[in-house]
């Protein structure tokens, strides 16, 4: 019998006060697509870092092709033939895509060769990627593409993918799956980390479920139902969302024929975008990242003030020239896509991070009432069930999902009249995602106008009342979610729509408007 490609036994890793991995066993056969399923904080990331040599286990054995190994560093892992696509990217902002990829390769090759390699792989897997672009100009989705292509370039024997599909169109997910299956057929093993149960059931051969650092079970996902997988993962079925019929009120947020040149040479120009969001409805914007979402959101939040005053209308007032604080005072709150560094300052405490968007604990002369601030933070932590040591914990000490709950909580707690939210559940586990979506629906029912930009179609279909698609800086007409199909939205995501489609296309760019 052939030795397993990778076998872990009794792997344990403790941090100061938590056991991240407790006696974990994992076996991956050659050519197997093996899912690792678990909530945030279940120990998936730690386990992958141990395999990849970025973290040392306190105990346990690792066998690679039947031989015991000690993977001391990612360098050694790569030499063995292990490649990884991290959920949190390890890219240098100031370098180009090709330079970043070059840095990650063990072999000595020229930049020219790498550039060509990237072009080839990107074309092969249908990923649009310009090797010459500096990474800081890329959106989150595009950065992930860099990581995927970088991993593919090393021709690995084991490829670890951490939530890779969140940034792809349904069609592209199909293509990626086809590629992964093809890759697996050549004998490459794939460790696939995801919280999307449907994907795991379509793609993976085996599935190891983690909860609280322990292995809860190993199963064949094709023989399980979504509900049974969910039970293994969180010990319960995912909570059902309470979805009342929308009762749209007056228009709360509107864009009128917004056109803007691109902010830098790698940005996306916005082309005559018209949009209306009414009180009491959730409008979703689908699209592959890098199609103008960042630019659109900056205009809506007030970080980008290049728009004409009248192009952005908030509760009937022109606010195109007013900054984020002025818009917040009018009732517009915004949850950005990047949590650390934009939505929160990593080194400041949770309580201090409240002050980015909340001013209730300020006293005359800008004096900070620390008692009130701490109480306010503690209230949000409790209400949104954020797992955190307390209001004094620095933002960067929280897991991505918990920080996201805190940031979303911070904005929802402000009782906004308009909420613009980008990627509300990106990289967040099933339980937390359901909670966040539930809160968004509750906010809508309370009469708030919600605009949600997301790359997860499942989420958009679940929560939105109307859907737009953004592609190449243009916004499609809206379609009522119950009338929309996955195929139609997927096609729109490639920029293919006619203005007549969707029926109620408002502000269609006719002559003279």
């Amino acid at each position, binding site marked *: 019998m052939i030795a397993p490609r990778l076998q872990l036994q009794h792997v344990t890793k403790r941090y100061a006060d938590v056991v991240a991995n407790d006696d974990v066993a994992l076996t991956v056969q050659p050519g197997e697509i093996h899912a690792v399923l678990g909530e945030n904080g279940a120990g998936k990331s730690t386990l992958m870092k141990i395999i990849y040599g970025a973290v040392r286990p306190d105990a346990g054995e690792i066998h690679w092709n039947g031989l015991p190994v000690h993977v001391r560093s990612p360098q050694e892992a790569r030499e063995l033939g292990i490649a990884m696509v991290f959920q949190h990217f390890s890219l240098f902002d100031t370098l180009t895509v090709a330079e970043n990829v070059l840095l990650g390769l063990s072999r000595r090759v020229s930049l020219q060769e790498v550039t060509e390699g990237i072009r080839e792989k990107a074309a092969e897997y249908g990923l649009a990627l310009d090797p010459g672009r500096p990474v800081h100009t890329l959106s989150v989705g595009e950065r992930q593409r860099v990581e995927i292509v970088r991993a593919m370039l090393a021709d690995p024997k084991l490829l670890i993918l951490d939530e890779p599909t969140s940034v792809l169109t349904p069609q592209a997910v199909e293509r990626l799956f086809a590629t992964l299956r093809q890759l697996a057929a050549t004998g490459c093993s794939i460790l696939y980390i995801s919280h999307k149960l449907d994907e795991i059931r379509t793609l993976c051969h085996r599935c190891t479920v983690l909860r609280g650092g322990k292995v809860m079970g190993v199963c064949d996902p094709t023989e399980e139902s979504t509900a049974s997988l969910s039970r293994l993962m969180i010990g319960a079925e995912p909570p059902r969302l309470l979805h009342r019929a929308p009762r749209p009120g007056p228009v709360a947020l509107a864009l009128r024929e917004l056109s803007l040149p691109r902010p830098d040479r790698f940005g996306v120009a916005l082309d005559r975008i018209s949009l209306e969001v009414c009180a009491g409805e959730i409008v979703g914007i689908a699209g592959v990242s890098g199609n103008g979402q960042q630019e659109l959101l900056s205009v809506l939040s007030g970080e980008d003030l290049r728009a004409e005053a009248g192009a952005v209308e908030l509760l009937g007032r022109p606010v195109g020239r007013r900054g984020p604080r002025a818009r917040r005072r009018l009732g517009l709150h915004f949850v950005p896509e990047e949590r650390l*560094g*934009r*939505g929160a300052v990593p080194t*400041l405490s949770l309580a201090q991070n409240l*002050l980015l968007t909340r001013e209730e604990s300020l006293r005359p002369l800008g004096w900070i009432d620390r008692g009130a601030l701490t109480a306010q933070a503690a209230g949000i932590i409790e209400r949104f069930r954020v797992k955190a040591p307390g209001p004094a914990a620095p933002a960067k000490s929280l897991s991505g999902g918990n920080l996201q709950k805190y940031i979303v909580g911070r904005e929802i707690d402000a009782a906004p009249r308009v909420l613009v939210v980008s990627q509300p559940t990106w990289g967040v586990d099933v339980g937390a995602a359901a909670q966040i979506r539930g809160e968004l629906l509750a906010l809508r029912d309370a009469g708030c106008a919600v605009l949600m930009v997301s790359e997860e179609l499942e989420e958009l279909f679940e929560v939105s009342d109307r859907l737009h698609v953004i592609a190449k800086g243009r916004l499609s007409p809206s379609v009522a979610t119950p009338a929309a199909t996955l195929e139609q939205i997927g096609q729109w995501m490639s920029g293919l729509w006619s203005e007549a489609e969707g029926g109620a296309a408002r502000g269609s760019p006719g002559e003279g408007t």
Partner: protein
Amino acid sequence: MIRFEARPAPSRLMSALSPLVALLATVAVAALLFLALGKDPVQGLSVFLVEPLRGARALSEIGLKSTPLILCALGLSLCYRSNVWNIGAEGQFLLGAIGGGGLALWVTAGELAISRWAFFPLLILAGAAAGAAWAAIVALLRDRFHASEILVSLMLVYVANLVLSYLVFGPWKDPHGWNFPQTMSFAEATAVPRLARGMRLHAGFPFALLVTAAAWLFTFRTYRGLQLQVGGAAPAAARYAGFSARSSLWTVLLTSGALAGIAGAFEAAGPMGQLTPHVSTGYGFTAIIVAFVGRLHPLGCVLGSGLLSMFLIGGELAQSRVGLPAALTGVFQGVLLLALLACDTLIHYRPRWTSTR
């Protein structure tokens, strides 16, 4: 072989210990240096570490030298926390000396009747205005033309030096001063009030401590202070929150310029009592080290100022008592800063001893 592994969270212990470890390393290097120069290391070290602390008079001298260091370092810490790299406190200090000295000269030449305590606040205002104006040039160039504040602030130090030289060699030269490049001695009334008879420590020291307390409250207890820190630590978060980067830039540069200017005014009016080309002994540059040794924290700046003052005084003593070159002070300052930056690595990384393969 030693490898450095990232810690899951920054170590609080190392954060506190790092300056002490750096100080020990500096002492060790100093001892070796004394040995290499053929001096008794015990005697040499005691000149730097014990002598400056012996007796009330010695302590008052430390307070005297600490005063400009504290004021400059407080302003610089504020700048560095907001990611504005002002390294030209020396120039702002010199302009403050010119402003404060000029005011004292005007009072002296006009033989105006004024009491010391009435002149004290005027001196502060003159120094602050001159220092802030000098820093405003940096802010303006950075704001309007995106000029690097590092280069501009540093270059302006040399310009400030030339302005001072022009004044004391030219229009402000004492007509009865045998052509020495210095102004006439200022009137008694313009001196900074002294705290005790026979000691040079003056009212500037308690003023600096008051500013320390104010800086501490401002940085950690006010919205404005928080905005500055957010702008420094995460510019994207500041944009998201709607905190103005321009207003932060102006605030920190004007504040640090004003504080350095006040230090310069005190120095001209206080211990010196006249303007010469040598009104500063590099306080503005030494304050950069103070700010980092003090962890960019106001209270740390006070402690760091005390330490660096010991080095300054020890350097003078080493020259006269042990016959060592005065340049040693600079060497020790440099070693201390390097050792500190090296030790700071340990806050975020922990060493691991691994056997070589």
